């Protein structure tokens, strides 16, 4: 029997690849409780990786999308609306599958981009790997959901705020940066927190549809399923991964709560909106 300490050494970083620990996963009867806790925890690294990067990237793109969606110019608003509709209207499960199939259709050698004076070859192969391809899909998906939230918030920016900006002679980018954007964030933040939570939960779908696991390195759910298959006992592995997610979600809520307090720090205490959990989004 391995001790917990040995498990930590062998499997603590195993999710990164077989070079980062024992090449083989524990099998059958030799699986200890510690193995399960440690290996599933190791897989959580991928969930955090997907979650953090997709949320950060999605936040920026969603702002652009929301502004485009609100634009009076149909050249901007139509594509933005279409993008939001497609990604919000279909299950993430199917998006993952189709994206993976699309990525493997890309030419193996890469795409040649001709820039008049020189030719750049864009590598496409890594897109079929979960760390890039799945991240890209999650990024697009959360962008669509967040853009929907931001779009609603932009429309709800009080008219008085805009008039005040006009009175100060603010226009264009300055007006957006100083007045519209902060107000939009403030209004959207409670819903956006929920979106972030759901996106984080959706990272469990990565190795579940489409993207294959390489070298037996996957996310927390991949290992939980591996253990459930190996020990034929779902009553240990799944509660472990559930506990990890509860913990991670609490941390996420604390972070978003801190941002919420900062966004609303100018308001008298009793007027500050509380973060209330409203499950509006799922994939």
């Amino acid at each position: 029997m391995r001790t917990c300490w040995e498990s930590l050494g062998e499997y603590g970083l195993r999710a990164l690849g077989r070079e980062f620990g024992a090449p083989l996963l524990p099998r059958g009867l030799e699986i200890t409780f510690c193995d399960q806790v440690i290996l599933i925890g190791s897989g959580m690294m991928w969930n955090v990786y997907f979650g953090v990067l997709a949320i950060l990237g999605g936040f920026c793109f969603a702002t652009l999308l929301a502004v485009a969606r609100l634009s009076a110019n149909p050249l901007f608003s139509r594509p933005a609306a279409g993008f939001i509709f497609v990604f919000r209207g279909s299950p993430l499960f199917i998006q993952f599958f189709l994206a993976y199939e699309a990525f493997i259709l890309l030419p193996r050698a890469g795409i040649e981009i001709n820039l008049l004076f020189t030719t750049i070859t864009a590598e496409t192969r890594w897109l079929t790997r979960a760390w890039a391809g799945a991240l890209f899909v999650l990024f697009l998906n959360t962008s669509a959901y967040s853009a929907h939230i931001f779009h609603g918030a932009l429309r709800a920016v009080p008219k008085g705020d805009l008039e005040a900006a006009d009175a100060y002679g603010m226009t264009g980018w300055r007006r957006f940066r100083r007045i519209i954007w902060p107000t939009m964030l403030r209004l959207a933040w409670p819903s956006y927190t929920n979106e972030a939570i759901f996106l984080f939960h959706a990272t469990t779908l990565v190795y579940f549809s489409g993207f294959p696991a390489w070298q037996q390195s996957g996310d927390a759910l991949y290992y939980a399923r591996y253990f459930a298959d190996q020990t034929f006992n779902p009553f240990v592995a799944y509660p472990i991964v559930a506990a990890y997610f509860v913990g991670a979600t609490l941390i996420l809520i604390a972070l978003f709560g801190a941002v919420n307090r900062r966004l609303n720090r100018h308001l008298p205490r009793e007027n500050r909106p509380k973060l209330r959990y409203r499950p509006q989004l799922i994939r």
Partner: protein
Amino acid sequence: MFSFCVDPSILPQWQWFACYLTSGTHLAFYWAFLVVLALILLAAPAALLFGFGGALAARSRVPPVRWLGVGYISMVRGIPDIIFFLFVPIAMDQGIEYLVHHVRCPDWTEPIRQGTDFIVCPQAKVPLNDAARWVHDAYAFVLAVVAFAIVFGAFAANTLYGAMSAVPRAQIETGEAYGMTPRQTFRRILLPQMWIYALPGLSNLWMILIKATPLLFLLGIRDVVFWARELGGAKTAQFYAYPHPDWRVWYFLALLVVYLLVTWASEKVFERIMTRLNTGQATAGGERLRRTKAAA
């Protein structure tokens, strides 16, 4: 299906496709759409029921009941639904068989868990081993509906809990001023009023349910995703009458279109309902309606 389908290998293209798309497996695929639809139509009210119970429990003045309700609601907050689906049905299935075992076979001496084996007496099998196939299918279906209802009932509970708190306090006070008991204010004032506040959340719940259906195959339902995978996979001429390369991408594209259509149609329907419910309500939506009417 068609009389010319006897030997598909010699058919011209359009006839080949006509036969291919009406083969036994494809009919099962189309049937799966109905099964999934039936399932969400059943799961939605069931989830609402669970949600109503959860919301009531969370408002209860008895602490243990309240904790139960709040615990149920916050369950969805922390745990991805997939993990529930991997776990809840097997737990339910074994739990039911365990209980039935103790009722029907009190004299059974052998342990239920022998190593990894989970063994209950034959009479405690749910459904019985010799039950007709449709009974097994129906049981799996019911189990899936209940699993959906439990998980998404927590979403509904959250929405309804919020809606109950959103009904203006003054309305309830008015009821109390008329000498109504708490029970009466709940039934006559809170309950009829809360729906307008709950509807946006409930329409979301419907969308959530639709978009969660690709996970049905986890619950042992031969759903559309299962068949799309099965039918789309490459088929060799040695064993199949309709050999073809890997066509999964087309099947999944078709699924994507169907999902987009269903969500689009649902959105339209909910917009209609919302307009109707908003009429004459003391909400922002009602106010907007009043104004546009006044302006017209």
